[in-house]
């Protein structure tokens, strides 16, 4: 049973009530059909209103859900013959990022993504999906390999952020991220990025410079976690909910800001309710995106990426400029 999310409580309570009435009806042999029908209609209305007007904080909860499908889940549903490839050839293998080669339908591709664990033990092994520099360097190695063999690259983004630790700093966390941004800009093959859970800051972006960037409906993408933003802005991490609302981190926000291309619809209540169906919904968008990119030349792909990022930002001009002497 999925952990209960706070905003879903009224739904769960109503569901419980209906179940109780049903068993009561069976036990006592009293006809409560009308009452149940009425409640079921109410439930359906409640579900619709809850899931169609989700608040940013609700989406944050879904994006972080322990049972939310991960990179390996989507690889399992959408690709065949996946062979995982390990290591950055420099230091080690970071299991917070997985990557490898596979077929997408009949097309050879390289797939890379952040990987959270499904339980505590796996989370420790995968460092809760928070990569060290060797993770980003592995990803880059696989991207360059994909480029050499002219394979499209698909990146799944799902991380709270790059790991903030001593070893990470010593081995050049900044450089590893920065290098990926620059190198991804120049890849001569199609790159499609999909934010499937949390897109946490530079650690997410390091797999995120693509020709298309899509987001699952309930995923988030932000410069800092809502908790971090609250701590900095109001010196109070408990104001995370407020920060989530003002930071504009949801898929509809990013679409409006002109940063992402498509919002991938989620199954009602979130991807964790039906991972297989969710993969199908993603499949449609992936296929369309790949079709569009496969017809482009190497130069067109690089230029398209350039234009895509060049236009992100909002600024104005003043007439009486102050000139530096």
């Amino acid at each position: 049973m999925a952990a209960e999310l706070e905003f879903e409580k009224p739904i769960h309570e109503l569901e419980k009530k209906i179940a109780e009435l049903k068993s009561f009806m069976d036990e006592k042999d009293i006809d409560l059909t009308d009452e149940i029908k009425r409640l079921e209609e109410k439930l359906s209305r409640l579900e619709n209103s809850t899931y169609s007007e989700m608040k940013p904080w609700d989406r944050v909860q879904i994006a972080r859900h322990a049972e939310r499908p991960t990179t390996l889940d989507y690889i399992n549903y959408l690709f065949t013959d996946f062979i995982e490839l390990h290591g950055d050839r420099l230091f080690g293998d970071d299991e917070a990022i997985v990557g490898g080669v596979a077929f997408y339908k009949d097309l050879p591709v390289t797939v890379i993504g952040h990987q959270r664990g499904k339980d505590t033990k796996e989370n420790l092994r995968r460092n809760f999906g928070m990569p060290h520099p060797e993770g980003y360097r592995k990803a880059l190695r696989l991207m360059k390999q994909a480029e050499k063999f002219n394979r499209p690259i698909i990146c799944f983004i799902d991380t709270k952020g790059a790991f903030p630790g001593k070893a990470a700093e010593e081995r050049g966390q900044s450089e590893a991220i920065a290098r990926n941004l620059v190198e991804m800009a120049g890849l001569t093959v199609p790159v499609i990025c999909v934010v499937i859970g949390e897109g946490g800051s530079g650690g997410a972006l390091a797999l995120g410079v693509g020709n298309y960037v899509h987001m699952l409906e309930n995923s988030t993408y932000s410069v800092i976690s809502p908790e971090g933003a609250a701590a900095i802005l109001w010196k109070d991490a408990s104001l995370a909910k407020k920060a989530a609302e003002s930071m504009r981190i949801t898929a509809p926000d990013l679409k409006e800001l002109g940063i992402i291309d498509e919002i991938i619809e989620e199954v009602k209540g979130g991807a964790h309710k039906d991972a297989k169906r969710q993969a199908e919904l993603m499949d449609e968008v992936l296929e369309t995106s790949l079709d569009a990119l496969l017809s482009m030349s190497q130069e067109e792909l690089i230029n398209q990426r350039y234009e895509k990022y060049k236009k992100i930002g909002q600024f104005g001009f003043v007439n009486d400029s102050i000139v530096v002497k």
Partner: protein
Amino acid sequence: MIKGLFVKKKKYATIPTGKVKQDVPEGIMTKCPECKHIMVTKELRKNLLVCQGCQYHYSMSSQERIASLIDEGTFSEYDANMISENPLEFPDYLEKLESDRKKTKINEAVVTGKGQINGMDVTLAVMDSRFRMGSMGSVVGEKITRAIEKAIENQTPFIIFTASGGARMQEGVLSLMQMAKTSVALKRLSDKGLLFISVMTHPTTGGVSASFASVGDYNFAEPRALIGFAGRRIIEQTIRQELPEDFQTAEFLLKHGQLDGVIHRSDMKKTLGTLLKIHTEGRLKHGGRTRI
């Protein structure tokens, strides 16, 4: 004296970045925050804002930096009139920008333009930590990107002096995306065979450290500058162990292979000039190529 430097480091590495604000000397006499050495402010300025006692490098404004590097009378600024908007409608953001504009006499946290170093053309970007902690929002990203495009257009090397706390919170994910924007431009610059030199000054952290600052053909830093991805406090909270005193200083990065060199401010123009000469003469002698 070397020993003295190391003793002082302890204090320096733990200085909160907010301290930079009081850093720029204003009175007739200035007391070094590190070794308490007292200098006539005028002398200190002549010494490029470096303490004669302990070689502590004070923060430099963008104007002072440009004056210290660029041949007199050769600098012309790009996009000086570009200003930030408030895309996320953050309370007080516009007021804070206005107050920083008044305080610094610049319109945003980076100044870009073209000029000459020892007679050689360069495109330059200088970040200014006095303006919103040098943080990168849409304007900083756009100005740097445009400067890179100018470097490509004019076939000049691109030099950046970074000083930034990272991405600008008030512009949210738009700030984050400036990391990608500047990177696609740097890739284009690199593909044209043009030179990019990054000089990290105090402080260079977060999204700026994790983008253009770290991918120069040459990466340098000023002595004892704070450089890192994550904040010291966050790391201490995460790993629950004390960090070395020199953690995330320029010297720490040098030791761990992240920098080509740590350069004293008094050697900066000379070093850049020599590098530019190596690249410029190389291009001339080998038919416009930097490689044989």
